[in-house]
């Protein structure tokens, strides 16, 4: 569960990216975050996984106020959250399997559990047959599925995706969307920032629209609402 209370964020250069945000996202919800570039969408998302700290206000994720979280506690917090990016952020010299396993290795998980979990999530994203390939040998959609697999490999309760389909063609975007809905069906909260009008209007979920650092619209089964 994610709760923001009166969140305000001003960058050192004077830009106000969050101007009094109040929102609550229940466990298991699927939420689209829409808004024009520069509206404060990215800041909104980044504050959820403590990449940015709010200037003031509360951000409670799974019962912890991460606005007040000490830097030394951030790594532990991050283990309860998965993050997916537009540019995949895969390590080019590692295979599909190694890329996913990396996320567990660096938190010192045991090899037995790593093997089991990695194969599970690769099956979930339909890449079990490509474990030994390098990212450069995969299509964009496949690469994004590897990065999704990596984000869920330590069973996070929330997955945050920042324009995950931004670099993909429409057909592939649908594929990715299916994967996210599948993950969501297991009870994982999904927060997805997106510019993809078709997806938002077709796959109906809650829509939070941000403009000028404020939530201007928040509807269950909403529309994209902008002319893309």
């Amino acid at each position, binding site marked *: 569960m994610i709760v923001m209370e009166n969140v305000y964020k001003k960058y050192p250069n004077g830009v106000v990216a969050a101007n009094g945000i109040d929102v609550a996202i229940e466990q298991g919800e699927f939420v689209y975050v829409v808004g024009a570039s520069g509206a404060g969408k990215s800041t909104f998302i980044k504050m959820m996984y403590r990449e940015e700290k709010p200037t003031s206000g509360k951000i409670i994720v799974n019962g912890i106020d991460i606005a007040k979280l000490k*830097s030394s506690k951030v*790594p532990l917090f*991050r283990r309860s959250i998965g993050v997916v990016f537009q540019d995949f*952020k895969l390590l080019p010299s590692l295979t599909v399997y190694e890329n996913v396993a990396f*996320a567990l290795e*660096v*938190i*010192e998980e045991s090899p037995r559990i790593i093997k089991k979990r990695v194969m599970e999530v690769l099956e979930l994203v339909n890449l079990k047959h490509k474990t030994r390939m390098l990212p450069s040998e995969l299509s964009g959609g496949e690469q994004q599925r590897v990065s999704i697999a*990596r984000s869920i490999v*330590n069973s996070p309760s929330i997955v945050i995706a920042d324009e995950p389909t931004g670099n993909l063609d429409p057909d592939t975007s649908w594929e990715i969307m299916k994967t996210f809905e599948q993950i969501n069906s297991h009870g994982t909260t999904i927060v997805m920032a997106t510019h993809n009008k078709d997806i938002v209007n077709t796959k109906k979920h809650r829509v939070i629209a941000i403009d000028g650092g404020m939530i201007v619209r928040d509807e269950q089964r909403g529309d994209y609402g902008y002319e893309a």
Partner: protein
Amino acid sequence: MSEMNNEVITVMKLRTIGRHVRESFKSIWRNGWMTFASVGAVTVTLLLVGVFYVILMNLNEVANSIEEDVTIKVLIDTTATPEQQKALETELKSMPEIKSVVFSSKDNELNQLVDSFGQQGEILKLYEQENPLNDAFLVKAAEPETTKQVAKKIEKLESVHLVNYGQNDVDKLFKIISISRNVGLVIIIGLLLTAVFLISNTIKITIVARRREIEIMRLVGATNGFIRWPFFLEGLWLGIFGSIIPITIIAILYKNIYGYLAPKLEGNFIQILEFTPFVYQVSLLLLMMGCIIGVWGSMMSVRKFLKV
């Protein structure tokens, strides 16, 4: 939160240590020329540090052994009666800061003077008929450093004609040591900083090359300690590799010098430091300095890049 805490504070697993060591060696290999340059800088620095250290420590030892041997010559008034001379001797022997008192007759003094002049000394033998020298007590201070004070004290005693001691020479030697130590220190610090700078640059290259890796590690919740370890180790290895050549060269060099000088100094009061344990001390010092330089350099760049 506390439950999560305990999970992380467990002792580092063997597997993790293995991973960090592997990663650090991979970077050393990948950085090629920068590795070579930083190891070279550490080598040059430590070699100079080692040579300076060996020279200074030995000069110190020589000065100490000379100082140990400093004798205060107390010349007895020619007018002193045997009783007065006896009284002076008793008084000197009763002073706690004096270790030994030896009488030396004026004939003995003359013989020594003649000897010290060698061939040309023969002419001094003419004085044998009418010896102008004084009888003397040869006094050694219990603490060589207090020679000056002891001498001053003796000067004030009765029946004392004059007090001589070689402290000035020793003072001069100590002054030379002190100056060369300071000059050496400045040069060494300069070299040290250069080595640290080069190492920190090498580690910086590693960090930049691993930027994405670090980004992902932080994203998926690797602790800062975990992220830092390979860089820490890389710096440590660079320092240790850099100390190998200086340690070897200095050990071999000192073995030869010691082998050459020690027999010549046999029976002489001047001494240099024995091969063991001195060379072990120097080696340990250089190894430790190498480690410090390496770790310092790596921490400098890691701190800049990994701040949360």
